[in-house]
């Protein structure tokens, strides 16, 4: 066989081996990079705005608040009432061209946000279709993150739930004897976030257990047992919550 035959075979095996997990990983990466881009842009737009109207800037350090107020921004006068400020400012009186740049910057951040939402929607759609059980337990984005960290859903399916529970912790090098960290990706699920701090660790463990079960179901039997899983999961979390309360 010559070089061309090898190339043809190799091209064919690449073509056949793509899986939906590859797209999932790229989408998660795009989501994270977009968040970074959004933050960088926000910082720069905010800084220019602060120069112009520091009294307002001091009240708008939080990004969501800034974006909310800046939707209707055209000059100091346009937002002063919303913030209980006077138009009198020690800030630099920017030219209207500079103010235009602030406004365009705000628009770009809004675009970035709706772009991110569209990525998230697509991730949820894919996960819901391909991995319905896991979707029900973890939601689309968290499932996608786990796939991205592990490499594939198959790798997750053979992982013990104790490992799934800690995937995504800053440093995945676990040293013998050291207490394992509890704050992985699983910790960010709605269910874990919704319980009191004293039962978060326990809840994360329960969620990881069900996640592991759901992943195995999605990979091996491919049945949709999501209703059953969700019911049992919620029951168990409820019980953990109850116990947690009586502990205090």
């Amino acid at each position, binding site marked *: 066989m010559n070089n061309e035959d*090898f*190339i043809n*075979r*190799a091209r064919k095996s690449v073509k056949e081996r793509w899986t939906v997990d590859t797209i999932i990983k790229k989408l998660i990466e795009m989501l994270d990079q977009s968040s970074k881009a959004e933050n960088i842009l926000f910082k720069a737009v905010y800084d220019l705005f602060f120069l112009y109207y520091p009294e307002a800037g001091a009240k708008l350090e939080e990004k969501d608040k800034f974006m909310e107020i800046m939707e209707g921004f055209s000059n100091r006068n346009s937002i002063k009432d919303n913030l209980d400020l006077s138009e009198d400012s020690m800030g630099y009186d920017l030219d209207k061209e500079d103010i235009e740049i602030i406004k365009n910057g705000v628009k770009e951040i809004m675009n970035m946000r709706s772009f991110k939402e569209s990525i998230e929607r697509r991730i949820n759609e894919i996960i819901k279709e391909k991995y319905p059980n896991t979707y029900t337990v973890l939601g689309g984005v968290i499932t996608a993150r786990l796939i991205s960290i592990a490499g594939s859903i198959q790798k997750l399916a053979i992982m013990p739930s104790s490992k799934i529970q800690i995937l995504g912790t800053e440093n995945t090098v676990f040293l013998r004897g050291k207490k394992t960290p509890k704050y992985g990706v699983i910790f960010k699920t709605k269910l874990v976030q919704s319980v009191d701090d004293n039962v978060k660790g326990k809840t994360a463990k329960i969620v990881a257990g069900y996640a592991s079960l759901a992943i195995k179901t999605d990979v091996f039997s491919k049945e949709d047992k999501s209703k059953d899983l969700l019911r049992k999961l919620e029951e168990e979390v409820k019980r953990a919550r109850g116990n947690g309360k009586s502990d205090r």
Partner: protein
Amino acid sequence: METERVIDNTYWINRGSRRVLTTINMQTGKSVYGERIFKINGKEYREWIPSRSKLAATIYKGFKPDSLKEGISVLYLGASTGTTVSHVSDIVGKNGKIYAVEISEEVGVKLILLAETRKNIYPIIYDAAKLEDKREILERCDFIYEDVAQRNQVEIFIKNANLFLKRGGYGAIAIKAKSIDVLAKPRDIIEKARETLSKRFSIIKSIDLYPFQKDHSIIFVKN
């Protein structure tokens, strides 16, 4: 600029006080991964960067891998996008062959595109631990190079040497100390790999690639 031969098609270029490792560019005018190209007396030399390639680091550390020669056949395990493969391609030249094995389709795409422009690269997108499945299309080679960064990298190397290395052939394996065991000391891991390899091959040399590559060594053997 003066040149000084290292092994076939591989030269140091002396640029003032610094020297730069290069291979003669088989594919004139084209840089593969952003490396610089030097033109001297009508010949093109492609920079071979030690932080990007363990084989280049080996040469920077003073070892001449002269069992890599023009015209030989090489089985390359863990080819990735083909950074190092492209230089081995320059070394073995148009009469040589490199069977370049890579498991990941994502990086494999780039490797295939490289093979489309360099006729001596034969890409195989497959698990290096299961190459017995590819016996019909492979042959015994003069040299086996492995850089897979896997826990069982030494076993994979030995298995493939048994299957595909000519008697009297040579091999080199890049050992990433951390892939085998994150807890053990890198030096112990290298020592253990050396010991396992020495039961099967004669060891030519083992080279610590620091500071070009951290926690990496390369071990050269003869079959």
